[in-house]
């Protein structure tokens, strides 16, 4: 994790001249993130908050040695921005943009993995290492430094949990939001594996939700010993109505996977304690630490 991102990582913001891009660039700068450049095609030569803006990612890499990007580009243009970042050799691309079509996501995620770039998102709040660096939009007021890692499919729920940990006197080593879309670059299990290798992290809180099979996958990998730290989990959506049925095909490939019950069962089978409500998370985390 430290190799992937730390306080010295040189970061660019794609879509820096937009409302969201500008706002969160200011937030990231004030947190200490080393933002070296912004990119907006057609706006090269401008400055945003003192940060130079370029027409292309390539220029930002040449001039500043950029290593990672945070993407705020609107959905219709976001895939292009991501391909550009991959082809310019950026090793980490955090895609905050929402509503990118799933076929676009699936192609760009595959392309990035072929080229050795990691995509976090789309539709992600990004990641934060408290008191050090953040890439994305996580509000730092809820995060204090500590030794609990958080991997999550939900943005605001992550802030809620981090805030609850804070009120209990517990802190966060790293929090990673993998993104709320059905297909994402970094998966929940991959994020947990990364935190498992992070020396600052003593235990991992997994915040899952209904739909897809990422939680079940994480539980399977935990059983196989691929995640060596203590893990506790929560699944949102026990009371939510079942999602739309994807024909016979959905049933044929997913079986029971996807429901809250399936996920909770998978965690318990793997020996991962599951919080019944979010209120139990801090106690379970404290127990895991002791």
């Amino acid at each position: 994790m430290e190799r992937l991102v730390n306080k010295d990582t040189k970061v660019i913001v794609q879509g820096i001249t937009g409302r969201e891009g500008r706002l969160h660039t200011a937030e990231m700068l004030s947190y200490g993130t080393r933002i070296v450049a912004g990119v907006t095609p057609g706006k090269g030569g401008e400055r945003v908050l003192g940060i130079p803006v370029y027409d292309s990612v390539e220029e930002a890499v040449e001039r500043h040695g950029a290593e990672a990007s945070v993407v705020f580009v609107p959905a219709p243009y976001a895939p292009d921005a991501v391909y550009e970042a991959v082809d310019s050799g950026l090793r980490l691309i955090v895609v905050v943009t929402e509503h990118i079509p799933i076929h676009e996501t699936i192609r760009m995620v595959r392309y990035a993995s072929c080229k050795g770039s990691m995509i976090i998102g789309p539709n992600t709040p990004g990641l934060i290492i408290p008191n050090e660096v953040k890439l994305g939009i996580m509000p730092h007021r809820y995060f204090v430094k500590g030794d609990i890692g958080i991997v999550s499919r939900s943005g605001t729920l992550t802030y809620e949990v981090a805030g609850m940990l804070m009120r209990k006197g517990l802190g966060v080593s790293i929090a990673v939001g993998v993104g709320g879309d059905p297909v994402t670059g970094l998966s929940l299990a991959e994020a947990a594996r990364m935190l498992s290798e992070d020396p600052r992290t003593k235990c991992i809180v997994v915040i899952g939700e209904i739909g897809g099979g990422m939680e079940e996958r994480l539980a399977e990998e935990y059983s196989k010993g691929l995640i060596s730290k203590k893990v506790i989990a929560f699944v949102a959506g026990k009371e939510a109505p079942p999602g739309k049925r994807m024909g016979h095909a959905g049933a044929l490939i997913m079986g029971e996977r996807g429901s809250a019950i399936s996920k909770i069962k998978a965690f318990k089978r793997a020996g991962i304690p599951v919080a019944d409500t979010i209120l139990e998370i801090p106690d379970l985390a404290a127990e895991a630490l002791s």
Partner: protein
Amino acid sequence: MYLYEYEAREILASYDIPVEDACLASSPEEVRECLRKINPPYIIKAQVRRGGRGRLGGVKEVTGALEAFEEAADMIGKELGGFVVKKVLIAQKLEIKRELYLSFIIDKEARSYLLLASPFGGVEVEEIHKQRPQSLLKIAIDPIVGLRDYMVRRVIKHLGLSLEQGEVIRRLYRVFIDYGCELLEINPLAVTEEGVFAVDRRMIVDESFAGTSPLLAKYWNNYISELSKEERIGVEQRFSYVKLDGDIGVMGNGAGLTMATMDLIRHLGGKPGVFLDIGGGASAERVSMALSLMLRDKDVNAILVNILGGITRCDEVARGIVNALERYRGKEKKIVVRLSGLNEEEGRRILAGRGVKVFVDPLDAIKEVVGYGEAGK
């Protein structure tokens, strides 16, 4: 967006994928006209945006025109699995020798496309798969590589089709890609004396794509035009508004937070009636629009607004809430607000002026709203 079967039929036909003769009717007069155009025997199919129509009685096989008229006219206007049947498809029933199953779906975990094929199609496909897992062929298709000839050869061998008939597989894949499908399912893919026909089709397209693709504009507009005012605002604003069986409306920013809030309400004995995720960007306008939807909902007795924002300005959110309450003066419901973010004090002051209870701790807010709901009385 779940397309109507007749819409999917039209799309497949435009890709030269063989389909049966069929005619769409929305009134008894149109049924009569259709029956003149299509030769017997018939299959009458209710057009609703969901699957499992057969089991609900929405698919009828009939031999003669008189019977067909009665069945079709009877279906129109009836309720079927939560939808009112406005249109029926009057299709010619083919003489089928074999029923196959073929679908394309997105494998979200593997981040690939998946082709599923079985020589045993029909409504029992899931059962047959359980008894004979070998009958289902799964081929992962890398989105960068696409569907290749060797894959098609494997499929036609598995299904017992000729090389020539395999062309339909390539065309279906093109539809799957061009229309941004989450699912394209042909069940059955019917083998007759004349060749292969896609006689029943299920197509679900990604809404992020459907709303922007010119190919889908016609179908998207049709979808939007059928929504209620509330649902339309929801789709346009990208709110997610889901009705449940209780009486407490739960509104939050972010699906996970809103679901976790709902789970806690249920845990404490309350009954959620609406799930409303307003998504990112909790501006005054969005909050006001979303709360208005909730205030209009007659099944909702009490409302919990749970807005957790880091850099969201609580005074903005509070103004949005007050604005909605002003608009619905006299039709107000019990409302409890949980706000966290910038300018919390100011937000609380604005809402206190309107007599709205504001909490910082989510649990306190949830306890309060559960007390207001039917189950709490």
